């Protein structure tokens, strides 16, 4: 009997070389029969369960059907004739009938016969579970048992038979199915990966470097383990391997140099997949990789375009936050910016200085999105990149401390990536409306250059991260408070020396000496000015509540807050 082979599975010389380099199925392996592991993991075949600890890499050279009477005859007479079982997948064709008639022990006898004759595996079409005794025996004898149950056992058996006799046909059929699915799912990565995963009955993912971008599993692969990221090996070529009991196939995705700042990998995984599955997976991934490349290029271009649009719009916003044109407002709405809401800005700065790379921006955008922090997208700026979180109410925004706790892992991950760019982040306070957003962005940019607080390893800086910031933010919004504040300090407006003295006095905690030192004037001058202030405002600065009220009033009155003090020449 001629041995069934895997002819012409992969005609791509580079691919074949890669297979050979992987030490698995390669140039030297084309032409080998399928293995037991292949039969367990046939794409599209469900309900095949592996029992026993036999050699799953044993080649299966042919399929032999065996009946119970043949098994019984051999069990009682070593000379009883049997078909050649060496290297065979032995199908116990009437196993269901044995079980029905209470003669299921024939299964154990068949396992013995299979082990004695060197069969590769035993196929048991059993609707019910194989008894524990038979499973223990299979382990003891080192026989692989494939229990074929599932909803369509006859179809599964037919596919198993086809896989043994003509694996090339099965391979071609699966490849055609994959190609059909892939061509209809060009630019939706999730659908594309799901289609490929369904063809391979496994998990298929796209990695950017060592980072997982997206993983999907086939509808029938619910029992497959979660995806594990792989490393690029073998000089960036395709390869397959067995790792921790799971078969892995890796195809690099070819990308133009402008887009390829880090390698993109298309990876398929399946627990227990054999040579046939790995070869099929490589071929299917090869078909799929161009579609993934198209998706990656498209995504890069879309990202770039959106980033440019965002940068231009943000520039307008920062220039005139309270006078946005209708066009700018429409563009902002189109980008999903809810400018009237509450905002907390994040400014990212390259630790080593210079711009943040485009690839890094893409990575950070993905990471922020995965962490639930990527609402506005990243907008590149000269000193880094900025983003912000928006919520309809203040309560919907995380506090600065919470936000820092969520950002830190992202920045740490980025810093640890082999080709990653180390970034630090600054946070702005929570503020409302376009004006508030602009102010928060400025605060975030300033915070990003703050020194590391003593004892902290955080990569996120925020001078404002306390609850009191929210109190101050709410003061800002209260028009009545603003009006009253202005009324309070109005008598001092136009008197910069008095305003500066009052501010310094409040900053110095009510100390006249401290105020004198801060302003560079004589203490008596300070006392004189303080008396003037008390007289004009009609208050006593010795009272604590008065000092608090004046501090708030100064903060909320822009005319008073921004005027610098004038040092006196008097001594």
């Amino acid at each position, binding site marked *: 009997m001629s041995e069934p082979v895997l002819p012409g599975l992969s005609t791509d010389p580079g691919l074949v070389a890669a297979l050979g380099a992987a030490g698995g199925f390669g140039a030297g392996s084309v032409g080998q029969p399928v293995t037991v592991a292949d039969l367990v993991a046939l794409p599209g075949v469900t309900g095949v369960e592996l029992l026993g600890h036999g050699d799953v890499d044993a080649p299966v050279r042919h399929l032999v059907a065996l009946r119970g009477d043949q098994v019984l005859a051999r069990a009682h007479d070593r000379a009883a004739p049997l078909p050649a079982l060496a290297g065979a997948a032995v199908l116990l064709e009437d196993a269901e009938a044995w079980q029905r008639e*209470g003669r299921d022990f024939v299964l*154990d006898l068949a396992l*013995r016969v299979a082990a004695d004759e060197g069969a590769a595996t035993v196929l048991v079409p059993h609707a019910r579970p194989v008894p*524990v*005794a038979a499973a223990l*025996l299979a382990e003891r004898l080192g026989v692989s048992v494939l229990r074929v149950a599932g909803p369509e056992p006859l179809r599964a058996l037919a596919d198993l038979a086809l896989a043994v006799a003509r694996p090339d046909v099965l391979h071609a059929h699966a490849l055609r199915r994959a190609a059909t699915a892939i061509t209809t799912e060009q630019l939706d990565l999730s659908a594309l990966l799901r289609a490929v995963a369904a063809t391979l009955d496994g998990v298929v993912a796209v990695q950017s470097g060592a980072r997982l971008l997206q993983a999907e599993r086939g509808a029938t692969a619910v029992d497959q383990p979660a995806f594990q990221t792989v490393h690029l090996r073998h000089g960036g070529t395709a390869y397959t391997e067995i790792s921790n009991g799971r078969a892995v196939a890796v195809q690099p995705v070819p990308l133009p140099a402008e887009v390829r700042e880090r390698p993109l990998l298309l990876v398929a995984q399946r627990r227990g997949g054999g040579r046939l599955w790995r070869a099929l997976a490589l071929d299917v991934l090869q078909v799929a990789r161009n579609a993934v490349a198209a998706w990656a290029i498209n995504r890069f271009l879309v990202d770039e375009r959106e980033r440019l649009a965002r940068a231009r719009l943000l520039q307008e916003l920062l220039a005139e936050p309270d006078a946005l044109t209708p066009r700018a407002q429409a563009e902002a709405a189109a980008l999903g910016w809810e400018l009237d809401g509450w905002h907390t800005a994040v400014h990212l700065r390259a630790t080593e200085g210079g711009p943040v790379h485009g690839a890094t921006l893409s990575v950070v955008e993905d990471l922020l999105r995965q962490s639930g922090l990527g609402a506005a997208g990243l907008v590149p700026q000269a000193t880094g990149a900025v983003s912000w979180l928006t919520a309809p109410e203040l309560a919907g925004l995380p506090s600065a401390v919470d936000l820092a706790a969520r950002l830190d892992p992202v920045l740490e991950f980025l810093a640890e990536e082999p080709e990653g760019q180390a970034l630090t982040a600054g946070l702005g306070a929570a503020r409302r409306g376009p004006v508030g957003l602009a102010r928060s962005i400025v605060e975030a940019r300033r915070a990003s250059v703050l020194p590391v607080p003593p004892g902290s390893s955080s990569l996120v800086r925020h001078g404002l991260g306390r609850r009191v910031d929210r109190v101050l933010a709410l003061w800002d919004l209260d028009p009545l408070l603003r009006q009253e504040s202005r009324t309070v300090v109005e008598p001092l407006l136009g008197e910069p020396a008095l305003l500066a003295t009052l501010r310094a006095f409040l900053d110095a905690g009510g100390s006249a000496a401290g105020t004198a030192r801060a302003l560079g004037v004589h203490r008596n001058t300070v006392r004189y000015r303080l008396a003037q202030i008390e007289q004009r405002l009609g208050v006593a600065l010795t009272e604590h509540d008065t000092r608090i009220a004046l501090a708030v009033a100064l903060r909320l009155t822009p005319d008073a807050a921004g005027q610098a003090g004038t040092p006196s020449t008097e001594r």
Partner: protein
Amino acid sequence: MTWQLTGRAVDALALGGLLLGGGGGGDTADDSGSTVPVTVADLAELDPGTRVCAVAQIGAPLIGRERVPAHELRAAVHALAHETGAPFPALVALEIGGQNAATAAAAARQTGLPLLDADLMGRALPRIDQTLLALAGGPVGPVALASPSGHVLTVREAGDEDVEGLTRALLPPLGGRAAAALYPTTVGALRSAGTAGTVRRAVDLGGALLDLRAAGASTDAGYRAGTAGTGTGIGSGTGAASGTGSGATAQVEAALGPLGLRVVARGDVRHVERTGGRVVAAVVGADGVSRLDADTEFHHCTLDGRPVAGVPDVVGVLDARTLHPVLVADLRTGTDVLVYRLPVAAPWYTDAGRALIERGRVGVPA
């Protein structure tokens, strides 16, 4: 040769019955009045024309563990004598396996009749039509059934194909279990059927096992009716016949081998699956993995995928610690067991004999 069944032989018969029961046939017999001797008569010494009927308790053995025995055995025998028009000068056991060995002795005591050194099965089987007499073409009926509460029913003029089903159908109103007198026949027919000597065989087997247990520190309480698996064991390796050591197999074979018993597997019961009346047990020992298949009795055993015991042989299990036969219903994970086989009468090994035994198996059409 006629001999008296009394004293230790009564216990030996009960234990031997369990050994020949192969895990079926129950383990609780009506042993009331067991101190009264029973005369056991050799078939060869009796006139071939001597009338005889078989006796047994039929129905669920577990009910026998709970039920208080009365004189239903005698009632059944008398009813069958009345039905057939003449008394029976002797009784024979329907099955020597399980509790019906001791039941036959109890019937002989209740009626004062001698018990023949024979039975109709040579082992335990689940159906009343699975006998060597039926195999030889003898009729099963009429069948007289009696319950402890005094009800007596007779199945008459039923063909052999129907008598099993009819009799089973009558058991529920009789409480699920009843004394039965059946197979009205002659000593000559029994001789032809090849059923002779099985009471002696059971007593010899049980006696040898008693001796083995006595050689250790065992008490006899362990094998007595109703206490399966509760014996105190045969010592902590102190006696020559200790079942706890690795030599238990050799000791059992040395003691019972001359009587035809062969130990075919030894190990711990690793798993017991019970599905739809079928039982599959995995026994793992130093020699390999054994598989025990059972329904009402153990019927097949393989060791590492090779057949080592199967019907028509009796396939049975001994607790290696207590040396007490284990019923199918009492097989438990974690027990250290010996699996044995015992040959039975030659007619069972014919094609027709094997086919008749198969009729009682779960899943096999009757």
